[in-house]
């Protein structure tokens, strides 16, 4: 069995990659994917921690987190769609009518 520490490390790396991606990419879809990456890191972490503690709750948390992520994707894509309809772009940098 893999030491949960390694998994946590992986989760951390995933999270950082996700975060980095979220703040460096312009494409909304890619950003959404990066957010998913962050959530995946969370899942991994939960699972690893559940293993570490031998606690069933962790797995439940992970399942719930997956569900949340799924809902988020659905909603996100819908919103992006409407953005695309209006702005005809999915580049986050070009959508800045509202500011100041």
């Amino acid at each position: 069995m893999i030491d949960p520490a390694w998994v946590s490390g992986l989760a951390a790396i995933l999270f950082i990659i996700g975060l980095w991606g979220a703040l460096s990419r312009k494409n909304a879809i890619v950003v959404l994917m990066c957010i998913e990456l962050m959530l995946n890191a969370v899942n991994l972490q939960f699972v690893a921690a559940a293993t570490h503690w031998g606690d069933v709750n962790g797995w439940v948390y992970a399942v719930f987190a997956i569900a949340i992520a799924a809902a988020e994707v659905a909603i996100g894509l819908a919103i992006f769609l409407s953005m695309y309809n209006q702005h005809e772009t999915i580049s986050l940098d070009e959508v800045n009518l509202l500011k100041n």
Partner: protein
Amino acid sequence: MKPEECNEIGMNCTEAFSTEFWTAISPELVMVIGLVALFIIPNLGNSKFRIPLTKLKIPWFLGGKRFAITGSPAIPGMLATATIFATLGMMAIDIIDGSVKTTTITSGDSILFKIDAFSRFFEILFLVAVLLASMATLDRIPAHTFKGKKSMDEMYDNRRQADLYILLLTTAIGMCLVALAQDLFVLFVGLELASLSTYILVAFHKESKSGAESGVKYFIVGSVASGIGLYGLSLMYLEFGTLQLSALRDAWSGTSTLGIIALGLVLVGFGFKVSAAPFHFAAPDAYAGANSPVAGVLATASKAMGMIGLIRVLVVITLPDSSGTLSEESAIWLYAIATLSVITMTWGNIAALGSTNPKRMLAYSSVAHAGYMLAALSAVGAWRWGEIDAPVDYAQAIVAAVLFHLFVLVAFKLGAFLVLGMLEMEGGASRLSALSGLARRDPLIGTAMFIFMLALAGVPPLAGFMSKFLVIAGIVSTSVGTVWVDGSVSFSDLHWVWWLALAMFLNSAISVFYYLRIGVVMFLDIPEEGRRKPLPYGASIRMAIWICLVATVILGLSSDTLIDMCYRAAESLDWD
């Protein structure tokens, strides 16, 4: 914790899905029922279901040509309003005698929910906010939905009416979950439910550029923030092996590095919800793009939801016990929150100073208010970490002040958004000039708006003054502690959080400037071209504004009951 155990220590425990469980959460159940009804009722029609292979048609009622009565565009709103009203009524009956029976809902070893004064208080707060918002949208479809001018009838035929109320209800349910949750993850799930609903609500004007844009921004930043928060939770789980509040509270140690990292990440997650600087950036954009009642809900209920999280994490989990053994090294978040509070309130106020979009201005002012509440939380921290000799009542009073502030915010901040909502009904409220001459066009609404502004600024005897007053009084009381025993005090004896009170006061002095400007514009300026006529009627939104107005005044004049309620709510948290 086993039910038997918790019964032993005097709590009323009940296992999930047991009979008692259904009674205990009956108010929330009403909402769920309402939600289901909202799915079904507008869709009732004359469709028939043909039993396969037969010609027998059984009336199926879902779909087809909608019935005139149930298909009326006014129905979803009324249904949602009635649902929330009923829920509120049930909760009110629950607490009418002043004390909430504490019921703990467990699932196996873990405590899921706890129905106590604290959670009931917040539930009422959320429901009032959502109720007002749904009332305000009753006889109007959110503005900018139609680009072209359409008749009211067409607007009412808009099927999205139902969507709006469904989302409002899910938001309410999510928020109630947050209030009830005794497990950080459950709390987060509720938070996500509410968040996801609000993302859609913000982006509800998908037909307009600003609607879509604000939705996107709010969604992306919100998701990142909640992702960070969730990661923090997972780290916390990794470190302590549980996300149960009571267990975490016992396990929490300020010396654990992973714990501190987790705390920081969780703070970011909730910080976004309360729109604390620098996590507030999406808020002004979101408020500006969303329709006003929804923005009002974001600024009040959503903020309160974030505040629940902060209170749970900061006050319940990470506050050291009274033994003081952990006192010095665990004063970990005191400076962080204090710094954050000063930055937040100053940022909010300064930014609002020059803002010419009333909605953005209200958004920034909401940021500032978040700062005030964070300052209050710092005082709670100082109570434990500042070697202040004061009983627990002091800290409870501060938390009560925060609760009071959150509650009355619903009255005047949401009220202000509702007034803007009225303006949106005749086309846009994104410029200051939209408000010009409002007092002349409609003295009642103008006066109401002015009173909301004064309340936001903290002018007595309005509710806004009372709330600020209580918060500051809380901070000062902590910084003073019980030094009076000596009869003689040196100024240096006071804890440094006293300066937070000063910062708050200076900030509210700055804030008067922009609140007052609204008043000046309303009372002095000449209405814009094309906005000379009185405002459209809209009985229910007027009613909502009136409720807000009366509450703003009454909660200022006669705040005793509410303070009491807040105090009891604060007391019911786990102190020691």
